[in-house]
């Protein structure tokens, strides 16, 4: 995806998206190293996986902020967006800690998992609000619309996956395959978007949300 963004001269414009993808790549390399060295059921791999996932979710959060900034570009509210994002991030971390503190003795490892799950859900709500803003502001940049929609698909799929893991923790053999599969969604959709959709392409988002009769 980063290569596609560089190829289409979009790296700086979507800086945090590219930074997130770069970090995601590094995390994947680290995970693979631990997988080969310690095995899939080792605590080293599991700890690295969930801690890096919590950090990546925070990175994804800032990538979403990048899209908010682009959509609300003309309103000059960047400062308030940053403040709001930090407050929301802090609030989510505090909530996750409060939940874990009541129910678990292994605070740190469960905190990473709980924080990821809650951040995915908060990210999902924020993406939904952003989609609402796109419809309301009649944003027409096709590339931006597709990036936001891909974000929505990704966040909602992960939020559902995390929730199912919590509900059915005994189905671990299945869950070990869902995350890698879902993890391909965002890079594939973004790479497709950068390659296929030009920055100048325009689309009426209201057309996507209406049902023609």
């Amino acid at each position, binding site marked *: 995806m980063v290569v596609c963004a560089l190829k289409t001269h979009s790296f700086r414009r979507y800086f945090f998206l590219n930074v997130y993808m770069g970090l995601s790549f590094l995390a994947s390399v680290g995970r693979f190293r631990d997988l080969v060295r310690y095995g899939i059921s080792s605590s080293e791999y599991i700890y690295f996986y969930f801690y890096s996932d919590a950090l990546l979710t925070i990175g994804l959060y800032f990538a979403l902020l990048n899209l908010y900034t682009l959509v609300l570009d003309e309103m000059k509210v960047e400062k308030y967006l940053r403040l709001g994002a930090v407050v929301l991030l802090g609030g989510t971390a505090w909530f996750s800690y409060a939940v874990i503190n009541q129910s678990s003795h292994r605070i740190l490892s469960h905190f990473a998992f709980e924080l990821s*799950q809650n951040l995915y859900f908060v990210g999902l709500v924020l993406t939904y609000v952003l989609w609402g803003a796109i419809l309301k502001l009649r944003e027409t940049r096709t590339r931006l619309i597709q990036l936001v*929609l891909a974000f929505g698909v990704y966040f909602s799929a992960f939020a559902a996956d995390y929730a199912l893991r919590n509900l059915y923790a005994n189905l671990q053999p299945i869950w070990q395959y869902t995350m890698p599969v879902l993890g391909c969604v965002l890079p594939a*959709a973004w790479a497709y978007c950068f390659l*296929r959709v030009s920055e100048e392409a325009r689309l009426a988002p209201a*057309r996507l949300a209406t049902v023609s009769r």
Partner: protein
Amino acid sequence: MMAAFIFVVSVVIFLQFFVFYCRSLIAVSAKQPLSPEVQEVTGIQRAASGDDFKRVMQLLHLCPERPEDRKGIQAVGAYFQLLNLVASTVARWIPSTKSWTDSERGHCTYFAAIALERRISFSREMLAQQMDS
């Protein structure tokens, strides 16, 4: 309880985003005209029909694959299956959704036909490059 709530909300929002995303992919290709050659091959003369989707996909799989197209085609293929599911379940009780699913399935076919056109021109370019070298 919290996890169940998150799950239900996530699935509903996922379906909504997935449909919008697929429609955005289709909307981009809807602006591109089909060449007379592909019209002839696919049999799409005026409006594309959902019934032709399977045949166009079969033609698509005959052409050399382009990696950058693969995910979009898979997403629209999944959207088409979802529409089929809606047509065979919800549309039985709510007939007004039938015309919507038919129209959307037709758009999916047009998307596949555009992808076929890209693959044909890609194959031609590859062949021309081989001939040159």
